[in-house]
């Protein structure tokens, strides 16, 4: 703390999660002073209850699957079982190391004042924590989100749980109902199935991961069917009752599913209640903070970033918005963020990854006759064959124009999204990517092949 007695800062940030700490780090690089207020742990949801722990579980799940199926590859092995205590200590080890790194980075920086405690916006330029006031020439709201439930569904943390509880479960349940077939729902379904659990997903929308391109949903559903992950889509749940051994869920129409546990994964709501936002004049909608494309709220010099801003709820969106706001405040006039250009990865098995527009959205935006698509099946991709994974790389382009959507399904395809992100955001034409023949035999080659095909020069594919 460089200015221990001075409680006026260039920026006061409420919330030390992905959005908040990214704002802080970028701001001090630009010479600004920052107060970063956090009531829990720096790193927020993503590090402690979100991205990192789920991905550790998913990797343990991958190991379990590979061991179970190792004979297909000539490796004789026996899967004895899942030791949840050991899984959790592996997971906590990863979190611990990253947490230490993050704390080091934030705390060693003299221009960042870290304030521990619950903050509240008490004036348009002031946040109060435990009776102490922190005034900022600018305020950044970054209070994040929480796991929602639905009316009539009371989370008890025992049999009816959210991701928060699922991430610290000390046992492998025998069966689980996952309510919600979105990103978080399919990721947990995938983990549990790999751990040997009997899983049923219940989703009111007509398909799993309904925000994705329709062909991605279809491919995921095909893969889940093969993995014997049950799912019931298209009808909302009607009621949930507790039974002697677990829960019983009734779907509208009468279908009934029973299981030991029910995971409620119906989305995340903005964490904005009783924080003084409305009182200070910040315009809100259903709990979300409204901003313009430069992330300004309706109150001058008050910005918002991360999950409280309507849109994708992703950690790296929080990072990108945090960096943007810091640069904006520092007068750097950064380019507006294209929300569609933010990459989306779902880390279940198989993985889903996408950036840009779905085919449906692209047709809506450009007209159906202006859109061309190409779906490259991973069956033609050597490395995917080696991994024994199925899936596809689908491209959406504007006729005689750039690629406006990339949609991928298959083991490990999440790692291909970096390239796709450049292609979409730099508005590359298929021919420009096609010219650069990709490394053989990789999975990223499939992205190359899809561009070759769309450019009219398929290599390991039919046109």
């Amino acid at each position, binding site marked *: 703390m460089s200015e221990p007695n001075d409680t006026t800062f260039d920026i006061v940030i409420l919330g030390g999660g992905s959005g908040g700490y990214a704002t802080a780090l970028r701001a001090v690089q630009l010479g600004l002073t920052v107060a970063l207020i956090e009531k829990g742990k720096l790193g927020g949801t993503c590090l402690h209850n979100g991205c990192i722990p789920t991905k550790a579980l998913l990797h343990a799940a991958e190991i379990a699957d590979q061991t179970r199926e190792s004979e297909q590859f000539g490796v004789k092995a026996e899967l004895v079982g899942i030791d949840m205590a050991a899984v959790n200590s592996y997971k906590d080890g990863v979190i611990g190391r990253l947490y230490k790194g993050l704390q080091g980075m934030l705390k060693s920086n003299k221009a960042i004042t870290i304030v521990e405690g619950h903050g509240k916006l008490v004036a348009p330029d002031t946040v109060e924590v435990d009776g102490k006031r922190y005034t900022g020439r600018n305020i950044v709201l970054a209070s994040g989100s929480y796991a929602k439930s639905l009316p009539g569904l009371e989370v008890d943390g025992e049999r009816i749980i959210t991701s928060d509880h699922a991430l610290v479960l000390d046992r492998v349940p025998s069966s689980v109902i996952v309510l919600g077939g979105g990103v978080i729902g399919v990721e947990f379904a995938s983990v549990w199935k790999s751990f040997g659990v009997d899983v049923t997903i219940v989703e009111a929308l007509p398909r799993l991961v309904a925000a994705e391109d329709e062909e991605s949903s279809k491919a995921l559903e095909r893969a889940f069917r093969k993995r014997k992950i049950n799912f019931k889509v298209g009808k909302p749940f009607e009621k949930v009752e507790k039974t002697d051994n677990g829960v019983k869920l009734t779907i509208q129409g009468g279908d009934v599913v029973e299981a030991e546990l029910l995971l409620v994964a119906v989305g995340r709501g903005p964490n904005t209640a009783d924080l003084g936002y409305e009182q200070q004049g910040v315009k809100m909608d259903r709990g979300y903070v409204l901003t*313009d*494309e*430069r992330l*300004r709220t309706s109150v001058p010099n008050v910005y918002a970033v991360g999950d409280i801003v309507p849109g994708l709820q992703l950690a790296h969106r929080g990072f990108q918005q945090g960096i943007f706001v810091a640069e904006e405040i520092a007068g750097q006039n950064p*380019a*507006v963020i294209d929300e569609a250009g933010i990459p989306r990865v779902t880390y279940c098995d198989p993985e889903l990854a996408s950036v840009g527009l779905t085919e449906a959205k692209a047709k809506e935006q450009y007209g159906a006759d202006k859109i061309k698509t190409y779906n490259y099946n991973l069956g033609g991709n050597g490395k995917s064959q080696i991994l024994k994974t199925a899936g596809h790389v689908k491209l959406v382009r504007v006729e*005689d*124009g750039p690629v406006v959507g990339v949609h991928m399904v298959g083991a490990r395809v999440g790692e291909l999204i970096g390239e796709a992100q*450049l*292609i979409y*955001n*730099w*508005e*590359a*034409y298929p*021919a*420009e990517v*096609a*010219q650069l023949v990709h490394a053989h035999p990789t999975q990223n080659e499939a992205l190359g092949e899809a561009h070759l095909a769309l*450019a009219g*020069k398929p290599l390991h594919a039919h046109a």
Partner: protein
Amino acid sequence: VPAQATATAAPVQAAPAPVAPVPPAPAVDGNGRAGGLVLAKPPVRKLAKDLGVDLAALTGSGPLGSITREDVQRAASGTPAAAEPLT
């Protein structure tokens, strides 16, 4: 024992083949780009977009008449892009 990653046993002979003449304004350039697309690498096009520069109005100073970052930046400082519209 030579490393075998590459076989650079022989230098590539530069029997300086005349690079085939490039038409000044090709309908399809050497990279298969259709005529509608301005000749500039993708990141340069993105830069132009961010800075509000209309590439079609520029003459490129790069190889084969391609538009470079410098061309874009020059255009941007010459005609300051209008502030981003606020929603």
